[in-house]
């Protein structure tokens, strides 16, 4: 049993865990020491949930190979169902247990919706599939935005038009109030929980990739017809990956709703713009690279925040950075140049070493 001390890090996946845990430890120490600005400490949980949803979307885009523009919708479902649950048991359950159950409910519902939406969606291909996921994301947002849900002694009431139509008993409790959404969700999420959930999502996705199922999924991505011909159940594996991807997005949604006291189903939180923003994280981090998604989500969420000092120029700078980074990281011509430089650099090093 003579193993190198760092053999743990030899496996690619473990490096990701190590990075996440290292960030957690460093941040916790800095937080305890009180040297972290309140601005940065407030960014930690959002950073984690966007990283989680990016991991989930990468499973769909990178591993399954299907472009989804509706993941914000699954986040929305996780957020709303868990927040409504937490509203009901706000005073009757202890925080930890309540959050755990809310998490289970949020994930279960987003997985369910992922499954149901997956049935029609996965019959399509390419851009048609992308537009239908976009459509479903917008449908979810629109319906939740006009949903009124209340609970009284007679059970649940819901309406799609107005609060008055619920016909609630006076003791009733409003859970979802139309455009106002859910207000007063207990703030059960914190940085440690968020990191823990990020690691859970990483374990789930990375283990899936390295499993028999994962290889089946990737074979469908690379060549569907060949995969089918060797007896892989294409529909089953597509559904599996899509549902899991939706469930992970739902998990991020639970964190979202339990990190802030208000929740509305509007475009700036759950619209197609947000789905696209998450796609930016995935592509910039490297399609199919789970670690890349985590790092890109964290950096790109932080970037506009750290540019706050530039006031009205910050979104402008952000957009320029986005274009430039894309070209540097993806343009074949630039990549060739980079490789050339690398080679020269290496050669130079070797010469120095032997001299």
């Amino acid at each position, binding site marked *: 049993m003579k193993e190198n001390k760092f053999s743990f890090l030899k496996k690619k996946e473990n490096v990701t865990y190590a*990075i996440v845990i290292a960030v957690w430890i*460093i941040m916790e120490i*800095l937080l305890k020491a009180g*040297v*972290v*600005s*309140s*601005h*940065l*400490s*407030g*960014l930690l949980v*959002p950073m984690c949930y966007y990283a989680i949803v990016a991991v989930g979307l990468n499973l769909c885009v990178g591993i399954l190979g299907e472009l989804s523009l509706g993941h914000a919708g699954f986040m929305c479902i996780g957020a709303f169902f868990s927040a409504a649950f937490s509203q009901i048991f706000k005073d009757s359950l202890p925080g930890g247990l309540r959050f755990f159950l809310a998490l289970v409910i949020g994930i279960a519902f987003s997985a369910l919706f992922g499954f149901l939406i997956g049935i029609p969606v996965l019959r399509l291909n390419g851009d048609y599939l992308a537009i239908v996921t976009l459509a479903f994301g*917008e449908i979810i947002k*629109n319906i939740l*935005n*006009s949903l009124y849900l209340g609970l009284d002694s007679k059970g649940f009431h819901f309406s799609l038009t*107005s*609060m*008055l139509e619920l016909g609630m008993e006076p003791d009733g409790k409003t859970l979802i109030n*139309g*455009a*106002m*959404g859910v*207000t007063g969700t207990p*703030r059960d999420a914190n940085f440690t929980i968020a990191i823990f959930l990020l690691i859970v999502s990483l374990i789930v996705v990375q283990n899936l990739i390295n499993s028999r199922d994962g290889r089946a999924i990737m074979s469908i991505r690379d060549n569907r017809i060949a995969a089918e011909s060797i007896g892989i159940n294409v529909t089953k594996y597509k559904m599996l990956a899509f549902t899991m991807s939706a469930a992970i997005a739902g998990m991020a949604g639970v964190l*979202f709703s339990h*990190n*802030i*006291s*208000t929740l*509305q189903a*509007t*475009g*700036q*939180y759950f*619209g197609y713009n947000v789905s696209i923003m998450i796609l930016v994280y995935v592509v910039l*981090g*490297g399609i199919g*690279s789970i*670690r*890349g998604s985590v*790092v*890109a989500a*964290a*950096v790109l969420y*932080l*970037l506009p*925040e*750290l540019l*706050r000092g530039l*006031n*009205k120029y*910050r*979104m402008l700078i952000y957009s320029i950075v986005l274009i430039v980074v894309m070209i540097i*990281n993806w343009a074949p011509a630039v*990549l060739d140049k*980079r*490789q050339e430089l*690398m080679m020269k650099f290496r050669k130079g090093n070797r010469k120095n070493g032997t001299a």
Partner: protein
Amino acid sequence: MKKFRKAASVVLAALMTASMVAGCGSSASQGSGSGETAGSAASEAAGASGDAAFKIGVIGPLTGGAAAYGTCVANSAQLAVDEINAAGGVNGYRLELKSEDDELDAQKSVNAYNTLKDWGMQMLLGSVTSACSLAVSEETKADNMFQLTPSGSAKECVQYDNVFRVCFSDPAQGTASAEYIGQHKLASKVGIIYDSSDVYSSGIATNFVAEAANQGFEVVSQEAFTADNNTDFSVQLQKAKDGGAELVFLPIYYKEASLILQQADKMGYKPTFFGCDGLDGILGVENFDASLAEGTMLLTPFAADATDDLTVNFVTKYKELYGETPNQFGADAYDGVYAIKAAIEKGAITPEAGVSGICESLKKTMTEISVDGLTSEGMTWDATGEPNKSPKAVVIKDGAYVSAE
């Protein structure tokens, strides 16, 4: 290809580390935050004394679809602060102002709040919109930071005792509008067009409908639009027309209202349009044909072309500095700064009292002051955080606002 990805992720990781350090760095400068003088804060102010200053933070959407409201709030608050500083400050101290963007996103609003806290903010004027204001109020409650929202109108915005507001609440506006229409017998059949994806708009619409039953007029159509679908109103107008509505109630913002007026005109439908404070600004839309708004009524506390000295002074200065006509959001913010000033003077508060100390004193003195502002004369507040002011009904005549009384 793998190598490049690796290289890419290394670059990104380096960026992240750098950003972490930058984040920590900003915390280190927390104490000396006063070095970053905000905007054009009049440092040459005559009587205002040296270093110590009250630091007021502003949060609102400065970019994105709602930027028109946020920028107006930030500019107007800056205007008020500059005026106050030029006149000698408050209790001999200067006011400092810093605005942060929230992009209409509640989470970003909290981020903006935290940034301002790092800057050393002692009082918050914000957030501009209801949901953001509500999210931030959780934070101000926890920090015991005084918060005055210029235009967060949802009922829940002022649920905590440290939060006050300048504008009317949504329920109050909805009810007041219905009462006004009922009492003045403006119409017996009323149509409503509202934004169902917006808290402000749907809040007013709900309360308006509830009150309509008591006021003896009938709501014949209640049709919505959403933020994603806010250009074509032919169906909503057609339904109001088919229902025989003589008055169409528009609890929405002027951007959509300007389209509704134009489309109604093209349809040949000419009811009375009746709006709330969100409609103010419609005459300021660049290049808008004001004749379309002829006869439109507004229940608003502020009208940009009112002729009283305060409004004239404010609007002239604003136009000079920013080249646009300010809207009621700006007026609320301007009044908000003066309310803070009055409350500080009343309690003889000094910046040394600290965030919590200032908040405790302001909570008390806010209920004792009376402010003559742009949005009302003799504004007072009670402990619930609601202002006591009466909405003015104005009607647009010959391209100008005229009191409807």
